[in-house]
């Protein structure tokens, strides 16, 4: 088991390194100037480039960057636009995105499970069809379209929720974005739950349990749901990262100070803010890799076959 975990951690670290490298190189070779040069003379731009070490070979720059990363700061730790330190701003934005992300995940998973279970229990009947339609709609409608729809009806037509995100009124402002974001989670989770449950329900041991006289909710809870949940966790894990790292369009529309909006602004601002884009890219990747790593390890614990396969491989 230790060997399995060590191997996974090493792989994760290597992946993160590779991602950092690719991100770094891509951003450096991108066309465009990192500074809002309108009010800067050629001399000032040159000076700024020298200051930031942009004149050095790209691999040297990368090595410098890794050194700074190791010391805990991103880039030289400041935005290229306004010289403000990145870390506190990024943390604040992560916090906002996290809060909304957590609400939408909890809500999405719970509702998704509920719909999935109802559909599975009534498979082939009207309710099953209805739940399927709901989950397909959820996948098809982009969350931001749903967000605009909600904003129009529940902030504009019926002014119940604030029209823009308001941090001092968090819960009420979080409802619409969280609901829109959870749409995808609801449909994905419900679809998987239904399919997994239907499969488990057709298995021999469930049939045996039924033959023993178990039925209804008891059968579902004891035998079906527990076995169906494992694959569902696999679907939820990447969703968690997606939702935690913010939704760029929704944050932009609703004015949420989250990491998604921060990323968009860093890319499409007056110039590409190298330091921000890299820092955010690395944080997003690290989160994703960490969750996947956790999942891999959990699998190993839950299901010894995976561990064994790794050993043989």
């Amino acid at each position, binding site marked *: 088991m230790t060997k399995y975990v060590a191997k996974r951690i090493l792989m994760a670290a290597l992946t993160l390194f590779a991602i950092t490298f690719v991100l770094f190189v891509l951003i450096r070779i991108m066309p*465009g100037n990192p500074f809002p*040069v309108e*009010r800067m003379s050629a001399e000032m731009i040159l000076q700024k480039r020298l200051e930031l070490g942009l004149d050095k070979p790209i691999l040297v720059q990368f090595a410098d960057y890794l050194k700074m990363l190791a010391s805990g700061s991103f880039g030289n730790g400041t*935005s290229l636009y*306004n010289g403000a330190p990145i870390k*506190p701003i990024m943390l604040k934005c992560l916090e906002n995105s996290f809060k909304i992300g957590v609400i939408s995940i909890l809500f999405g998973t719970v509702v998704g499970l509920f719909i999935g279970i109802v559909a599975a229990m009534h498979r082939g009947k009207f309710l099953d069809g209805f739940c399927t339609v709901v989950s397909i709609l959820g996948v098809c409608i982009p969350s931001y379209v749903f967000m605009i729809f909600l904003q129009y009806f529940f902030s504009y037509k019926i002014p119940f929720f604030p029209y823009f995100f308001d941090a*001092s009124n968090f819960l009420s402002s979080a409802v619409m974005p969280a609901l829109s974001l959870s749409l995808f989670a609801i449909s994905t989770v419900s679809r998987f739950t239904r399919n997994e449950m239907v499969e488990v329900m057709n298995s021999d041991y469930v049939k045996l349990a039924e033959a023993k006289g178990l039925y209804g909710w008891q059968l*579902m809870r004891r035998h079906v749901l527990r076995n169906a949940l494992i694959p569902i966790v696999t679907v939820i894990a990447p969703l968690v990262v997606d939702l935690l790292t913010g939704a760029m369009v929704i944050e932009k529309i609703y004015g949420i100070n989250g990491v998604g*909006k921060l990323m968009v602004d860093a890319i499409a601002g007056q110039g590409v803010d190298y330091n921000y884009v890299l820092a955010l890219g690395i944080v997003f990747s690290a989160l994703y890799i960490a969750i996947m790593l956790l999942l891999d390890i959990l699998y190993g614990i839950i299901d010894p076959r995976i561990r064994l396969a790794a050993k043989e491989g």
Partner: protein
Amino acid sequence: MRKILMFTLLILAAMVTACGGGEEKDSNTLKVMLGSNAVSLDAAQATDSVSFELMADCIDGLTQMDSNGKAIPAIAESYDISEDGKTYTFHLRDAKWANGDEVTAEDFVFAWRRHCLESTKYAYIMGATVACVKNADAVTKKEAAPETLGISAPDSKTLVVELDAPVSFFPSLMCFPAFYPINEKFYNSLEKGTYGTSPETFLSNGAFTLTEYLPGTSNIRLQKNNSYWNAQNISLENLQYQVVSSSDNALTAFKNGTLNLVAINGNQVENVKNDADLSKNLKIIPTGLLQYLSFNQDAKNHHGGALANVNLRLAISNAIDRESLVNNYVTNGAQATYTAIPINFAPNAETGRFFAEDQKQFSDVVSFDVEKARRFFDAAKAELGKDIFDLDIIYANDSGDTVIKVAQAIKSQVEENLPGVILNLQPMPKAEYLDRVTTNSYDIAITNWAPDYDDPMTFLTLWTTEGSEISEHWSNLDYDRIITECTTGDLAANYNERWSAMYDAEEILLRNAVIAPLYTNASAVLISENVKGVDFHSVAIERVFKNVK
């Protein structure tokens, strides 16, 4: 199952109960839309009007603008000018920073020196082309000690500024954020690079203090500063800013009362005019922003430098129907412009007439006249020995669709009126656009410039040999000479002669068609009827909220 159901219901219930009420109705709060993020609250970092507006809300400089844009006293209660116009002595009033410290003359000395020492984006404004503060350029280039900069504080309430040449608009220049004071003690107590990045790291001495702000975030909140020297005349208690990137979203937010002041785009103006309720709220605000075509005149540029030929430039400039551009494509109240200085800007101190009020004075070289354009074009074809001109026209497409429509209109007008000219439209993100301009890989750029201070020189210095290193690549010694005379030379002291010399400079510029002016932009805003006293300006600080009643 029951547990899951209960949990779901619980979450829903919590959400719904948390939402009751929603909007607080505070009659003394003004909610204003911002079109983009504020880059920074540090005058050394910001170059955008949004940041300037926020700084002006929170900090008073030596002077401030009245509702007509004239400089009136702020921190300086009064000032004396020496006979030669080169020494200003400002007498500061008793004013306090929000932390209780006195605002002193040293605060100004510190802030001004900092611009030169750190050679910030606005170090140039201290120097010979603008404010002419003694030794500013030398200190910026590290050729002189910071103590030699022409600003000193004989005592804490007296500030003496020495200039290399008289600057007629110096008092109005003092409204600009680059000249604002910084509390040195406070600044030095902060971690490097954090000044102005949060309410805790920013200190105001002005009408409002910051209560909620992070660089790049969408909501900014300010509240009345009770220790402001003029606090008894400030009636607005809260000022809230909301960054809204889509004007459709802004319009809806205005309609349902979420925002009291929003900017709308040209497409929406027509709809709003037809709406009986909304049209009452519509206001067209003239700005000082000049939209123009910048011709790359470097003979070595990537298309063989055809635009180094003056007749080709004149042909293009005269083939554009500017009236049609503003009436059919921009539609936000912008005015067609035939001068290098935009229209609603730089009034003469004596007559009060705007510098560019007479739009016809250069009509023989800048107009819409197809026949004339073709004559210029024939001359260009003869001189260059070719009939087909393939030119790239570049523009940034990430700041709304107006420029996209304008580019398309220019292409169709020029190609129709000058058969043989082909304009290749090249929209691109702003970062790439700026890169193309600085690396000299374009033929024509659609660009704009907004004035930093209330004098034609804020535009004219763009096209000196030194200034045009970045764009146009045009150099004219006569032009350079006039600009030098007007800024640091003999004409600096003579208001009227300087004024007419600036027309001479503008004439050289337009006869050579260095640029093709297109229009002076306007901004269409919707403002709630009960909001009175918002001052709009075409220079430096676009909106001032101090006088809101």
